[in-house]
């Protein structure tokens, strides 16, 4: 059920008025059919979440089309015109560079970048926000950026670091495929961070786009020889604080 300004939303009327795309329609339908209540202070707040979730899905699909390599942190690479590589293998925004330009460059010059799946997730969130916010606002909100994993994360994005059980899962959520029997020489395949693209598809950097079975099958290739446990999708997700982000002007 969707509640906006204390009123239950008639989904059919909303769909007619708003004319959502397929991703947004998927989100609306799931929320409407859910046993949980999805409450919003305003229509604008609800629309913002739909737009940002859609933007996350688009950013993930674009990354899949690009040439960014999967590389371990030890061998990660970035475009030195925009980023400084840390000794840990993360990327820090270069001094004097506009954050929006640096984030855009990851798409424009994707072949100059290579990193692990967690960093890719953070990049997707920044790219999605840059599609929603004006560059000037984006630069004001994120004057310094460090890209690595859930260790180093901006306060405004910190919720995507916390993965927990949810009553429903939506496009734009970060999910995690866990690979408990991973080969000890390849710990980077201990799991795969993915973005829910809707229709049962996921994007994970290093694997690409696939359904549940394809993600599992790919991870299972990196298990120990005597493995007994298959990789599996965790019943949990991390998601942005859409409401806080929507209130930013």
């Amino acid at each position, binding site marked *: 059920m969707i509640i906006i300004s204390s009123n239950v939303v008639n989904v059919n009327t909303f769909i007619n008025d708003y004319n959502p795309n397929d991703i947004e329609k998927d989100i609306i339908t799931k929320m409407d059919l859910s046993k949980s209540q999805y409450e919003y202070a305003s229509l604008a707040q609800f629309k913002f979440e739909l737009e940002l979730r859609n933007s996350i899905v688009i950013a993930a699909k674009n990354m899949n089309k690009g040439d960014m390599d999967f590389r371990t942190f*030890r061998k990660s690479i970035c475009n030195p015109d925009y980023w400084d590589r840390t000794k840990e293998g993360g990327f820090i925004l270069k001094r004097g560079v506009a954050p929006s330009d640096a984030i855009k460059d990851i798409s424009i010059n994707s072949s100059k970048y290579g990193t692990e799946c967690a960093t890719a997730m953070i990049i997707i969130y920044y790219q999605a926000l840059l599609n929603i916010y004006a560059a000037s606002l984006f630069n004001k909100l994120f004057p310094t950026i460090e890209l690595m994993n859930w260790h180093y994360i901006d306060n405004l994005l910190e919720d995507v670091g916390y993965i927990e059980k949810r009553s429903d899962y939506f496009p734009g959520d970060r999910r995690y495929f866990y690979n408990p029997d991973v080969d*000890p020489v390849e*710990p980077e395949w201990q*799991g795969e961070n993915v973005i829910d693209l809707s229709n049962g598809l996921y994007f994970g950097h290093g694997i690409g786009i696939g359904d549940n079975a394809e993600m599992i099958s790919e991870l299972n290739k990196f298990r120990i020889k005597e493995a007994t446990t298959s990789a599996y999708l965790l019943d949990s997700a991390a998601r942005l604080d859409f409401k806080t982000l929507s209130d930013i002007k």
Partner: protein
Amino acid sequence: MRIANTNDSSSSKLKYLYSTHREIAYSDLKNMFENCISNRESSDEHDKILDVTASLLIKTHKDKTILPTIVDTIFSRNRRGLFNHDLIWSFFQARDPYSLMLIANYLNSEDIDDVKLARKLLDFVPSIDMTRGGDSKKQYLSFFYYLKENYPFLYFTGESFQRTSNPKPYVIALDAKYLCKRVSVNTGKPFIPLTQKENNLSKYFNKLDDDNKQLLSNFSLKIQYQNKYLWRSWINQSIIKQINTAEARLGFL
């Protein structure tokens, strides 16, 4: 999209390690590890070999003797801003709750970077707020007593920093603590199968909210330790009476 470098390296040693690690004898692996330790942080490649040998020794050969050295290396790298995530992952893969004291020792370090990392790695303990500054010695003692009390009931979850900002690598099997039954660190299930009566107790216990689960599991362990006769009498009461007794008496135990 391409998978570029997961297996490649200019180092022939590393290539050798990747291609033949299943055939390398334990003693040879251990020699490689010790050689790496004596030259640690001399090069990124060297550290990579150290990480791989550590992972193999822990995961494949169940070698826990290297854990103190690994913890020292993790903290040493942290002070220099070097990559240590794989080594942290390997350390937790040992599935040995006692080894957490090796990290807790760094709560008393004079180096603030050591203290910060120790707090971060031990932040999964719900009863200890590791994120606040405060008195590190108190945090150390709190952690020591937490581990002493809960060790038999901790099990490994597999959570890591690749998955989440706040990994909880170990959690307490509260129902086992309530029944005072030691669990497997791998599964969280009691080593000795539960009796029908214990299964029933467990069923009622698992329907409680988190606060009452905490209350009963803490009280049960304390009273069982102090007086087994009283414990048996208490746990045979209805779950409501157990809660009432625990609420009234826990502060006095």
